[in-house]
């Protein structure tokens, strides 16, 4: 039934948690110039995690949004510097809109993670910035996108463009992708200069909202995972750190803040799971995805900020991992629509019909 995590789901969760515990090194992106946690990505690739949502016929894991959400949540818990969510949304686009021949050719490298995909969402601004023109059997893209979230390591881009009054999706490996310095180094953004880049057009013409909805849900899952981890760390710290002769978790100002953090974390998870199951059952998930975004990212910022506060001075040091979390959840909140943007969408659907 809905919302029931099976034993396979639990096993997947533990697998990802274990891999992250041993392999994830988010600090690598801060100390060096790295745009991706290469070691973690390659372990995730060989474990078949990266292509979990790709159908089995194309060497994927044949999983769906519920499995993807579990993975994204665990990756968020570890502030893992891998573009799992964007890659998954890009692969989903190809799986939905590619011809059989395109799926065969494009999905294998995506499922194996040999290609790292970024995705440009079909916002009005992005659609205005890029033009596509036919060039024989191939296509050419021109224009400039100033900001593509978490595409710093992308070798391929999924790009929407207007063609004949319709939004169509193109795949290119020829764009000039330049990574940008970001506040959260674990999700490095990029700008893309197309300059007549070679591209191919996905044959499907559905104006599918699904890749965007999936991406919003997975990004929200990352935020929920990050918040859960920050809460866990903090609840441990408040039982260990003593002041006035008592563990600081004895003081109600601390205790009650922790309780509110718990509510915020569980609400974030509920919102994300609601969206995952809506996507899994093929329902229209626009509202569920907006709910997930509005709740999970905003709550995560509140929870991690509280976590910093409850750590005192140590919480505002470079050495303490909390700032990795704080940066990550703030970036997630600003990406793919702020909570108030999503509340606006919800209000429109409640009040303007």
């Amino acid at each position, binding site marked *: 039934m809905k*919302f029931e995590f099976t034993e396979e789901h639990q096993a997947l969760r533990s697998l990802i948690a274990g891999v992250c515990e041993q392999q994830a090194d988010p600090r690598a992106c801060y100390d060096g110039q790295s745009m991706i946690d290469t070691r973690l990505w390659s372990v995730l690739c060989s474990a078949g995690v990266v292509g979990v949502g790709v159908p089995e016929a194309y060497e994927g894991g044949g999983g769906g949004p519920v499995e993807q959400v579990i993975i994204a949540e665990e990756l968020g818990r570890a502030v893992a510097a891998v573009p799992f969510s964007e890659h998954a949304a890009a692969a989903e686009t190809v799986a939905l809109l590619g011809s059989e021949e395109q799926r065969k050719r494009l999905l294998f490298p995506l499922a194996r993670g040999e290609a790292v995909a970024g995705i440009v969402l079909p916002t009005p601004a992005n659609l205005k910035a890029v033009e596509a023109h036919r060039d024989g059997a191939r296509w050419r893209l021109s224009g400039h996108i100033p900001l593509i979230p978490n595409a710093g390591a992308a070798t391929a881009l999924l790009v929407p463009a207007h063609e004949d009054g319709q939004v169509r999706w193109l795949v290119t490996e020829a764009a000039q992708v330049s990574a940008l310095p970001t506040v959260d180094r674990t999700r490095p953004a990029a700008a893309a200069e197309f300059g007549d880049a070679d591209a191919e057009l996905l044959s499907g013409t559905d104006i599918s909202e699904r890749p965007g909805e999936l991406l919003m849900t997975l990004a929200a899952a990352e935020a929920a995972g990050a918040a859960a981890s920050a809460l866990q760390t903090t609840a441990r710290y408040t039982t260990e750190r003593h002041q006035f002769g*008592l563990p600081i978790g004895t003081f109600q100002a601390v*205790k009650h803040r922790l*309780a509110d953090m718990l509510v915020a974390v569980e609400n974030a998870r509920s919102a994300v799971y609601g969206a995952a199951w809506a996507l899994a059952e093929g329902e229209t998930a*626009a509202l569920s995805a907006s*709910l997930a975004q509005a709740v999970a990212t905003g709550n995560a910022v509140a929870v991690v900020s509280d976590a910093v506060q409850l750590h005192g001075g140590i919480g505002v040091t470079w050495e303490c991992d909390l700032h990795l979390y704080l940066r990550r959840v703030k970036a997630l909140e600003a990406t793919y629509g702020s909570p108030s943007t999503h509340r606006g969408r*919800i209000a429109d659907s*409640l009040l*303007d019909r």
Partner: protein
Amino acid sequence: MQQETLAPSGLGELDIDLSEDDAAFAEEWMTWLDTHLPAMHEKLADAGRDADKQALARDWQSQMAAGGWAAITWPLEFGGRAATARQQLIFYLTSAERRVPPLAGRIGINLCGPTLIAHGTSEQQQRFLPPMLDGRHVWCQGFSEPGAGSDLASLRTRGVVDGDSLVITGQKIWTSGAQYADWMFALVRTDPDAPKRRGISFVLVPMTANGIEVRPIRQISGDAGFNEVFLDEVRVPLTNVIGELNGGWNVTRTTLANERAILFMGQQMALTATLRKAITMAKVADPQGVRAADDPHFRDRIAQAWIDVELVRLNGMRNLARVLAGKEPGPEGAMSKLFGQHVEQKLHELALDLGGEFAILDRGAPDAPNRGKWALGWLRTRASTIGGGTSEIQRNVLAERILGQPRDPWADA
């Protein structure tokens, strides 16, 4: 966006497998409702005074008991159905959907009955359960006292053993429904020298006994829902003590966690109904032509209210999925009280605020929003974060039990 924005969580949405037994249960319950419910709805619509409504609620309970529906979670031998989690779910969902009236004696059935079943002697069970079930005896809960609210274990109403009687003197307060009740289950101090929690007994007191005086307390909304109960040398037989003398604290611990996981359905449906109505009204212009739906601040608050109600539903569904899979209720269950009561309060405040300047009008004023009911709902829900354990106490519970924080230094061991 095609998605149904205000989806009621009907059974279909839950997508659970029903066994043959469950399906038969549902069928029987529906058929029973078809026969009995319409007449009761008619009578209730005509009832005016509180006392009439109270009499009807008793009548309804006796009908429900005769059909075997008054206490479905009780064991068969006591007139229950030992309902499975799925059956309870069906029952609560359809009760909310079909507006099944509440039972007059729900406090007894939900709180006292399970305690008697777990801790009573078979004599006590034979004596008290049948009239509790069919509404001949309506019960109230006499726990809180003027000096013992959140710190319930500090209660001071005395019970002195005298031969084979217990003589009770003291005061209870906030006792819901005491003005209509035939019996009260109460906590009294029977050993003043023992540590706080070890000197308390759980005792059943007839409200008709000599020495009992009930004084209604008018609530914030103007209703008289709860009472003060004064006890002056009230004599009850020792056979009315449930469990061991001085063992009352543990007797009260009979938990209802599984049931609570399912009860959220009713709460969520009530919230959805309120939200639906508030949204409908926000789209209608007030007498001066102003529509709340055009105000950006209200739009944001309405979206947030929808989000909150959805979260109550989603938290509940997660918890339900665990319970139906035979697992312990998760942290979502313990959270849902704290979050749910907060959501209820906020939602009613929003509904009132949507009236703009007209929100100040009360019942009787022609332009009062929702005929003054929003104001009433707003006032009534101020109690949501107090009754049944305040939100501060809930926060303590969450932090201590789920997040492993130390207990308050002043709390008892």
